[in-house]
């Protein structure tokens, strides 16, 4: 969750006054970083994955499962575990051991927004050595074992994206009253959030800036006996504690939707995020652009979120709910009122799909960009004066249209160009599906790219499979100089499509037909050698209309390839990865392990195996206590979480959840 600086946070009216100063200082810090690091070269591929857990607490006697709010206790236990520290692990925010040069370094743990969440990352980054790839899954399992060892007997770290009963009465332990001053939620107490001052301030100031509570309406799944039209029966229209309690009386809760009203409903979701270090800034920009169109595909393929607040939803993924949970746009920015005080209409939340491309690549046609992209022209001008090229300046001037939400008074005294706090303030509260990360000042880290759309999977086998698949895709992209460009607006459209129930089997996504660049024999190398942007330009080849470059494909076609028709068939991401692996010296054992991972993804895409979303739906709908009315009751929730734990442990080897995982050895 970014930087955890301490200090006195400003309330929104005060923070708003200094927003321009924070932006201006952030831009100066960015320019300073960029000036220092733009020439960084030949950084190795290092990468890391992040696993997020929900900590659940079973009440066996009452067949009830709740979220445990003991995050702080668990982290304290982890940070004081001598053995873990000796092995290099721990909690970086508090205390951790030394990173091992040769041995395995124990994993590290981090707090997250939700007080019922825990994040775990490898103790040191992974490389591209194939042995490293094989260490990922055991490391993920090690992390979960360590996490569990520091929890109470009745607690377990589960990797469901969302807790099925979050927001229902008696869903957390210990219990707190709802309708607190920060969140003002009628469903969850303020104590649901990490008590670190940054988090409640973030939630409170988003609400404050917005002028009302955040509003999440998820379409409810209409089953045979669902009362229709559906009015969310858990909404209380008679609260009068806060002005925001009027929201529901003003129509915030939409018909046929599940209504939620707090940041925790979004930021309390678990995801699987991968960060790569690029060779240099150019390679980083290229990876950012090329991975961007893959985002919606991987979101649909990892779909795991069919339940909200005790109801089956009609969508399969978490993305838009998080987007709405942190949507700080004012009515003017949303277009509900004429622009008077605010600077512009904003089509997207600060948590949304990518809005622009950034690579200085001859293959990036102007037609792919959004002509209506909102940018802060003054900031763009300043970046250009500082020597930044138009594309990158546009990207950052777009991110900087937002206000900083959490500002600490102490940080406004002097501008420290050796830090990145003001820059990160905006950078890390722009949650797009990719993030382009400059090197932190004073570190020898390189330019990095984060891939953020994937949903967390129930087993570490699956989480390792998707992480490694993305790593291998990046290697294939760089080796074959693949081109996945489509207009950015189509990527955003795909992101919406990915939400549709069972999109993986039922929907088509815009995707580029030909990922190869035209053959050019006069070209030496494939541009992996130097950072000269000019080298990626080549004699202009005649190009047809942009619309002819892409078409609608099923996820199966994108992943496994198009098998009918002629030469112009899309080869498929898995065959591209296989082809890459065939060009590498890979030992048989590694190839066998990688084959297990690729097989999972291949079969998820072709429908042989189910997504977690489909499996969970099926579990609910065939549960003996399910009444066909979209309601996921206490018994079902308990059994579902228990089932998820069993799947995590057995990974289908006991024959359970084979629909999702196949026959495991």
């Amino acid at each position: 969750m970014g930087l955890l600086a301490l200090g006195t946070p400003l309330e929104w009216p005060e923070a708003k006054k200094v927003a321009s100063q924070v932006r201006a200082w952030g831009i100066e810090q960015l320019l300073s970083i960029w000036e220092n690091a733009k020439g960084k070269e030949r950084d190795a591929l290092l990468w890391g994955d992040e696993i997020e857990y929900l900590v659940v607490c079973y009440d066996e006697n009452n067949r009830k499962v709740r979220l445990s709010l003991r995050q702080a206790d668990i982290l304290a236990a982890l940070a004081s575990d001598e053995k873990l520290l000796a092995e290099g692990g721990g909690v970086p925010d508090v205390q951790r051991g030394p990173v091992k040069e040769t041995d395995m370094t124990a994993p590290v743990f981090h707090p997250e927004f939700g007080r019922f969440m825990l994040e775990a990352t490898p103790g040191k980054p992974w490389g591209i050595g194939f042995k490293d790839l094989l260490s990922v899954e055991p490391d993920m399992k090690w992390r979960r074992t360590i996490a569990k060892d520091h929890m109470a007997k009745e607690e377990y770290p589960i990797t469901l994206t969302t807790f099925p009963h979050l927001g229902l009465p008696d869903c957390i332990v210990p219990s707190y009253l709802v309708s607190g001053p920060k969140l003002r939620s009628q469903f969850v107490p303020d104590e649901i959030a990490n008590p670190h001052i940054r988090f409640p301030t973030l939630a409170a100031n988003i609400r404050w800036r917005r002028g009302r509570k955040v509003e999440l309406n998820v379409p409810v799944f209409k089953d045979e006996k669902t009362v229709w039209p559906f009015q969310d029966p858990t909404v209380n229209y008679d609260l009068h504690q806060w002005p925001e309690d009027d929201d529901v009386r003003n129509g915030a809760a939409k018909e046929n939707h599940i209504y939620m009203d707090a940041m925790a409903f979004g930021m309390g979701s678990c995801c699987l995020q991968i960060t790569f270090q690029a060779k240099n800034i150019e390679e980083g920009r290229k990876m950012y652009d090329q991975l961007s169109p893959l985002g919606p595909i991987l979101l649909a393929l990892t779909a795991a979120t069919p339940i909200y607040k005790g109801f089956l939803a009609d969508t399969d993924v978490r993305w838009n709910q998080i987007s709405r949970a942190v949507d700080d746009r004012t009515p003017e920015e949303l277009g509900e009122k004429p622009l008077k005080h605010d600077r512009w209409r904003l089509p997207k939340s600060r948590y949304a799909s990518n809005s622009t491309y950034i690579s200085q690549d001859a293959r990036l046609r102007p037609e792919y960009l959004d002509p209506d992209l909102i940018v802060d022209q003054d900031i763009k001008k300043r970046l250009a004066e500082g020597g930044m090229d138009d594309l990158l300046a546009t990207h950052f001037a777009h991110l900087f249209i937002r206000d900083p939400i959490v500002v600490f008074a102490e940080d406004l005294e002097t501008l420290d160009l050796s830090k990145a706090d003001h820059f990160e303030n905006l950078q890390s509260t722009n949650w797009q599906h990719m993030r382009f990360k400059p090197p932190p000042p004073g570190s020898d880290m390189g330019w990095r790219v984060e891939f953020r759309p994937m949903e967390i999977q129930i087993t570490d086998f699956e989480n390792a499979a998707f992480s490694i698949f993305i790593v291998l895709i990046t290697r294939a992209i760089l080796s074959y100089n693949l081109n996945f460009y489509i207009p950015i607006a189509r990527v955003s459209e795909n992101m919406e499509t990915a939400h549709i129930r069972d999109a993986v089997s039922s929907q088509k996504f815009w995707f580029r037909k030909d990922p190869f660049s035209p053959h050019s024999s006069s070209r030496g190398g494939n541009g992996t050698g130097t950072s000269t942007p000019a080298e990626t330009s080549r004699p202009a080849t005649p190009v047809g209309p942009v619309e002819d470059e892409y078409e609608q494909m099923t996820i199966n076609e994108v992943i496994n390839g198009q098998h009918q028709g002629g030469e112009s068939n899309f080869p498929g991401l898995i065959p591209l990865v296989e082809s890459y692996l065939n060009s590498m010296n890979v030992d048989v054992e590694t190839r066998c392990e990688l084959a297990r991972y690729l097989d999972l993804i291949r079969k998820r895409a072709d429908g042989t195996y189910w997504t977690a979303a489909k499996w969970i739906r099926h579990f609910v709908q065939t549960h003996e206590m399910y009444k066909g009315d979209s309601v996921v009751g206490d018994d079902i929730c308990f059994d579902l979480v228990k089932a998820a734990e069993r799947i995590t442990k057995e990974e289908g080897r006991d024959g359970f959840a084979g629909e999702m995982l196949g026959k495991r050895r």
Partner: protein
Amino acid sequence: MKLILSTSNIMSGGLSVIRRPTFEKSNTELTSSLHANFASHQSIIPPSTPANGASTPKPSYRSWTVQQDGALWIPTHTSSPLTEPRESYDITLKLFYLPNIPADRRCVQTREAIQLVLKELGASSIDLLIVSFPGMSFDADDDDSDLDDPPSAPDSEHDHDLHGTEGAPEDIDTIITTWRTLEKLHAEGLVSKLGIAEFGVSRLEKFLPQIDVKPSVNQINVRDCCVVPKPLILYAKQQNIELLTHNDCTNVLPRGTLREILGSGEKGVGILAGENDSSGDELRGDVEPQWVVKYTAVVKDRGVVESKGYFAVAELRD
């Protein structure tokens, strides 16, 4: 006359090879990347007459090939040296000795192949040289099975190629003789590690005691690499030989395929004259593939394949 065919760097082009991915072992990567490279060189030559719907004749091969030191380069070749310092890379060569070519030519052929690649990549040594002997293929189903049978199963490495008539499996003495050449290259520092392909346990048991420099690598072709026989895994581990996977076929360039590529037919590029051609400057004679080398240069700490390609050499005889 010697014919030197090259693909250039196949990573950078729009490769038809991955368009039709195949998990069977195949030589389509070689043949289709040769086609692609030839085509791109032909298309550089502007058509002499404006296109008016009529099919334009293929440009004369003289315009896109070059004759040099008694060899015809198809197409005209300019090398593309690696861009980063040598130590950033792992350079692997796989040399395919072809069927029915006398083994006593291999000493010269091996050096020739290495020199071509070194020049192409602008390097002075290679990290791994894997040699593939003709007529050998590995079949996990037939070899010492992964059941608990004693490893006394009959030696069943035999050629499953469709072109089985093009030579019987190489005998162990010829393999040893060839290996002596490779050991010299190793001693000279031209090659850091040596490797073999498609050796099962029984062949390894015959081979290893007779050589000085042990292979570091044994490359095997298995459609499902999870069925590699356990005895082979154990034996390789014991001998410190790394088992690597590949998907090449042993007879990577059969004579007929080469004739088709170079010929005057629909799929050919018009270098070899057709049977009924009487005019033109197309070449005549028998074309005999000698060897094929595949090279890859991988940026080690980034796992990026920067360069990959093939050279194939053939003799044209009257």
